[in-house]
């Protein structure tokens, strides 16, 4: 781990993670808008979550639910305009990213927190060798010499299971297969020994057999804190300690992975789980399908965004957006009906 002290000491974090430890990565009340031709799209609405050291938090949700926008905005990687972060706070090991200068931010990104993306081909610069790109970060953040950085690059490629790392380190991104490139991207992200790894659908474009290799690799880094964005509930089931479910720019449920899968409380989470075909379903019942579509982010209703598609909706759901409330220990849902059920059973 890096021994450099944090650049600025942000306000002491007052909240602990649900497991009662001081979080390593914390997003608090984040709000992000995009200017579009149709109007202002509220892509991220009061999103907050935290990740403990060594923990893996999965963020699940469908296209346009705000998963990627949340993470990109948190790391200040979204172009402004068209995006605008209108509120919130993001702490990496106590350092408030929103209070840093651009230069200070560059020192944190890649050193304390790094990111892997879905499309490894566009994440690499096509005209630089893989080794050069892995070296770049560690030379900057850890002050290694060219020679040391090259040796580390080879070591990292070997660790993530790229065959012939001595030879691969001098190759260009297009010379690697998709699975190998994805490994190289993970090597690049981990070379700086970050405290937090943010992974945005890093296995979605891969074949299942290669995906299984990558998941096994990620699981082998047990001390790493991970935020894993995915729409694949199977991947999440095998990887996450906790799960946050997003819908129309808000987290509508979060809790421990087993509770989310076995005892989901929000009607959207329940429907989402029911819509996945199961390999062990012998009867082949029709899948649960959620009628309709998510609301437009440009014109979000004042109440619950899931109202129009919900099978337990009530009139009160129209008046205001339900807040995330405890429905079980360490388990929250943003639903009036779920909150009432939790109270009567408590």
């Amino acid at each position, binding site marked *: 781990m890096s021994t450099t002290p944090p650049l600025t000491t942000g306000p002491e974090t007052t909240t602990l993670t649900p497991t009662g430890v001081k979080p390593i990565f914390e997003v608090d009340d984040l709000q992000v808008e995009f200017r579009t031709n149709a109007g202002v799209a509220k892509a991220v609405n009061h999103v907050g979550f935290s990740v403990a050291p060594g923990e893996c938090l999965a963020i699940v949700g*469908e*296209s346009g639910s705000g998963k990627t926008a949340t993470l990109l905005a948190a790391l200040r990687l979204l172009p402004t305009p068209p995006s605008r972060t209108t509120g919130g706070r993001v702490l990496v090991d106590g350092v408030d990213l929103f209070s840093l200068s651009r230069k200070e931010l560059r020192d944190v990104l890649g050193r304390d927190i790094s990111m892997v993306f879905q499309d490894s081909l566009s994440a690499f610069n096509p005209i630089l060798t893989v080794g050069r790109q892995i070296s770049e970060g560690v030379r900057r953040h850890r002050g290694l010499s060219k020679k040391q950085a090259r040796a580390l690059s080879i070591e990292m490629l070997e660790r993530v299971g790229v*065959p012939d790392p001595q030879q691969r380190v001098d190759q260009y991104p297009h*010379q690697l*297969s*998709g*699975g*190998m490139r994805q490994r190289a991207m993970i090597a690049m992200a981990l070379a700086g020994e970050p405290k937090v790894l943010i992974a945005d659908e890093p296995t979605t474009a891969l*074949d*299942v*057999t*290669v*995906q*299984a*290799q990558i*998941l*096994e690799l990620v699981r082998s880094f047990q001390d790493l804190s991970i935020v894993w964005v995915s*729409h*694949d*509930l*199977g*991947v*999440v*089931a*095998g990887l*996450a300690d906790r799960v946050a479910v997003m819908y129309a720019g808000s987290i509508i449920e979060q809790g421990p*992975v*087993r509770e989310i*899968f*076995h005892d989901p409380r929000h009607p959207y989470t329940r*429907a*989402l*789980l*029911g*819509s*996945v*075909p*199961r*390999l*062990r*379903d*012998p009867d*082949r019942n*029709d*899948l*649960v*399908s*959620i009628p309709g*579509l998510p609301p437009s982010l440009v014109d979000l209703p004042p109440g619950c965004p899931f109202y129009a598609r919900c099978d337990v909706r009530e009139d009160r759901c129209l008046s205001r957006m339900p807040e995330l409330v405890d429905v079980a220990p360490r388990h929250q849902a943003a639903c009036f009906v779920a909150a009432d059920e939790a109270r009567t059973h408590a």
Partner: protein
Amino acid sequence: MPDALLEVTDLAVHFNAKAGARGGSGVVKAVDGLDFSIGHGETVGVVGESGCGKSTTGLAIQGLVKATAGSIMLDGVDLTKLKNRQVRAARRRTQMVFQDPTSSLNMRMTVGQIVAEPLLVHETLPKAQHRERVAELLGLVGMPESALDRYPHEFSGGQRQRIGIARALAVEPDLIICDEPTAALDVSIRAQVLNLFRELQRERDLSYLFISHDLSAVHHISDRILVMYLGRPMELASRDTVYNDPQHPYTVALMSAVPIPDPDVERNRKHVLLKGDVPSPLNPPSGCVFRTRCPLAQDICATDKPEFRDVGTDGEKHMVACHFAQPGMAELVASKAAQ
């Protein structure tokens, strides 16, 4: 199966590859030695990794790429031997639904024109009745009649896929070739489309060739599943046999790689991990094409090409291309892979 709707025998589709930046030239055997059939009202799923030839198989049946060898019999007529006029007539009986509903619908045509186009091409109905027929087709796939005069961009991905399905249904085909029809859709929308496929099948005795890398979707919708690797068939059997009693090590690895959306199951099962990537199709391994990644590979696998043979019992046909095909393959592969 004497009453099969479609009978594919020893199908090969080869492409000439020119020397490129990656080097190497020669013949890519995208599909080679493929045998399978589809019965009336049956769904056959085709699974495999990128480049295994599953899409090429679909295109060859639809006549969109030329078969290099072999035959494709549709109700006793060999589609590979037809002349131009006959091709058109035969194509009416097979229709395709594509992966990307955005690029497979012409954005300058109204939904009504898109769905009516097969009717125009095949002249199955007087033009005056087209509008009425299109409205009926849209109703079948759960779209409002008001969609007729609107354009594809006005609809969501799931709705566009429904439009694509309505177009495929227009000329009342016997077989619909679905090439990754749900890959571009979100899970909740994917469920709607999968349910629609099954509902249409129940109502009209349709047959499907369902090509997908999404194994859970294929398992859900298929009666039988064909597993392909590097253009060759590896295994073909009923969906339950392929899942519960696969006899090809590749099928075992493929099934094991599909994550199961249940944390208790997913964390406690052993994954069979394949090493490396699929070899280049320009230079496939000798003998069994899977041997370079197979945990059971022996010397014979490099020298002798395994036959695609029937190992089924109890009257069920169960085709496998492996020298070591045997019941209990999943346990065998798991114990070998653990060593």
